[in-house]
């Protein structure tokens, strides 16, 4: 009874303020689209970190026969030099940082090379005996690359130490900048949304001051008077946030899963399932933002 009365009041308010309600929906939509984009970028980063930090290692490339690196003055790395490197890696200084070491000999390197370039013109372009030997070191903490680098970069028989994470780190820093930009835009848009909702509620309260005045006079409780206005903002914001979730799903489905995945086949990219994961969070943010800003507005502009 009372509930249906409140709902009909809410509906009247939404209808009368249509243009403002539409703008609240759109601003909420855009702001939460950026919030969601930032969240997806971070999910992508952490997903890639989990995936790649498990696999990517520090590679200690040993001197090939004709290297010009100063540490390779003695020519191809000798069995003795290899023994030294192995001992160092297992020694007390480094073993806390090292989780696993694999020696990649020429046969293994050749096999991996052939697999990687299977079907391309590079397949078979380098003979097996020209492959470079390396130690593949898996670190306990992937961020501790520098320790290995410092230790081995001057060791005889080592041509180069390569942190394969660095390639990823560059990608991650680009994605982090994108996240920061998305959060910045989202913040500004959310502020717009809060102000717009406040204005809309004020306008709505003003256009219905006759009703609310009478309601006050005949003893309607504050909550009863204010609920239709709060619901107005909350419904508009909820529609906007659902649209944002839907928009993200469409972008991810066609843009990421459809296009980007075909360009970056080996990457594990965010999916529509990830959007579904953040969608309730987006709606919650939208609804809370609208509810709080309309309550604060009403407290300021509608006296008991």
């Amino acid at each position: 009874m009372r509930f249906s009365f409140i709902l009909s009041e809410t509906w009247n308010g939404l209808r009368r303020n249509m243009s403002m309600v539409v703008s609240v929906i759109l601003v909420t939509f855009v702001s939460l689209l950026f919030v969601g984009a930032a969240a997806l970028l971070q999910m992508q980063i952490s997903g890639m970190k989990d995936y790649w930090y498990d696999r990517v290692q520090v590679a200690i490339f040993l001197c090939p026969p004709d290297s010009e690196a100063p540490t390779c003055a003695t020519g191809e790395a000798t069995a003795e030099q290899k023994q030294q490197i192995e001992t160092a890696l297992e020694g007390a200084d480094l073993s806390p940082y090292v989780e696993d070491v694999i020696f990649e000999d020429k046969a293994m390197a050749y096999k991996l090379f052939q697999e990687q370039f299977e079907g391309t013109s590079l397949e078979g372009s380098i003979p097996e005996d020209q492959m470079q030997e390396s130690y593949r070191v898996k670190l306990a903490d992937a961020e501790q690359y520098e320790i290995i680098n410092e230790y081995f970069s001057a060791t005889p028989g080592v041509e180069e130490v390569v942190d394969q994470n660095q390639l990823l780190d560059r990608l991650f820093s680009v994605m982090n900048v994108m996240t920061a930009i998305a959060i910045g835009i989202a913040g500004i848009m959310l502020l717009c949304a809060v102000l717009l909702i406040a204005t809309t509620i004020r306008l709505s309260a003003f256009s219905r001051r006759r009703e609310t005045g009478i309601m006050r006079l005949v003893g309607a409780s504050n909550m009863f008077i204010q609920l239709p206005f709060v619901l107005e903002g909350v419904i508009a914001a909820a529609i906007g946030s659902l649209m944002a979730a839907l928009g993200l799903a469409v972008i991810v489905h066609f843009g990421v899963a459809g296009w980007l995945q075909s360009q970056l086949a080996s990457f594990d990219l965010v999916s529509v399932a990830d959007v579904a994961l953040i969608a309730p969070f987006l709606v919650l943010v939208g609804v809370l933002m609208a509810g709080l800003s309309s309550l604060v507005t009403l407290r300021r502009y509608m006296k008991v």
Partner: protein
Amino acid sequence: MITFESVTKVYDSKAQPALNDISFTAEAGEFVFLVGASGSGKSTVIRLVLREEVPTAGRIRVAGKSVVKMPSWRVPYLRRNIGTVFQDFRLLPNKTVFDNVAFTLHVIGKTRAAISTLVPDVLETVGLEGKHKRYPHELSGGEQQRVAIARAVVNKPAILLADEPTGNLDPITGDEIMEVLQRINRAGTTVLMATHDGDIVNRMNRRVIELSNGRIVRDDEHGSYGVSA
């Protein structure tokens, strides 16, 4: 039913208080006129009873409750026990007579069944039988004020406040409205009516409290409009 004890009300902007140390008591079932020039403080009294304002000093009791110390969440319950009528009717233009009156009952959470019996009853009391489907703009001023009165008393409040209820009406229509108010008063409702209308006050021969510059200058048991201002 309504008690003012040494009530003073100062609005921030004005140097002179709107009400200056006034005291009076309106007993249950009484009919009290509040007279005085514009700006004498009549409307402030009405607003204080409704707790639209809080007095600067003094105590006010309405229907057995201290209005000053009342927490704001209790104010709506106070107002459910007070009916209010204004000079400008304050009806909702897009609602019918029936819906205007029913609005009060919706707002305080009465059931549909209760509304469908209470509203026709009160429309009969104020003399609007058969007009429940009309809209305010289809009614005369007197009829609109009857709707407003019906809305004010449909919840059977103990107190009816009337702020210049005949101010917008011609004398004959005004008399008809006074008829309605008297009928409601006879049923036991305390009526406090602020007015400028000397003829009406003189004819009714009821208690008159006269305000001038925020002070009570006269409180007669069976008063006339007077000329003490």
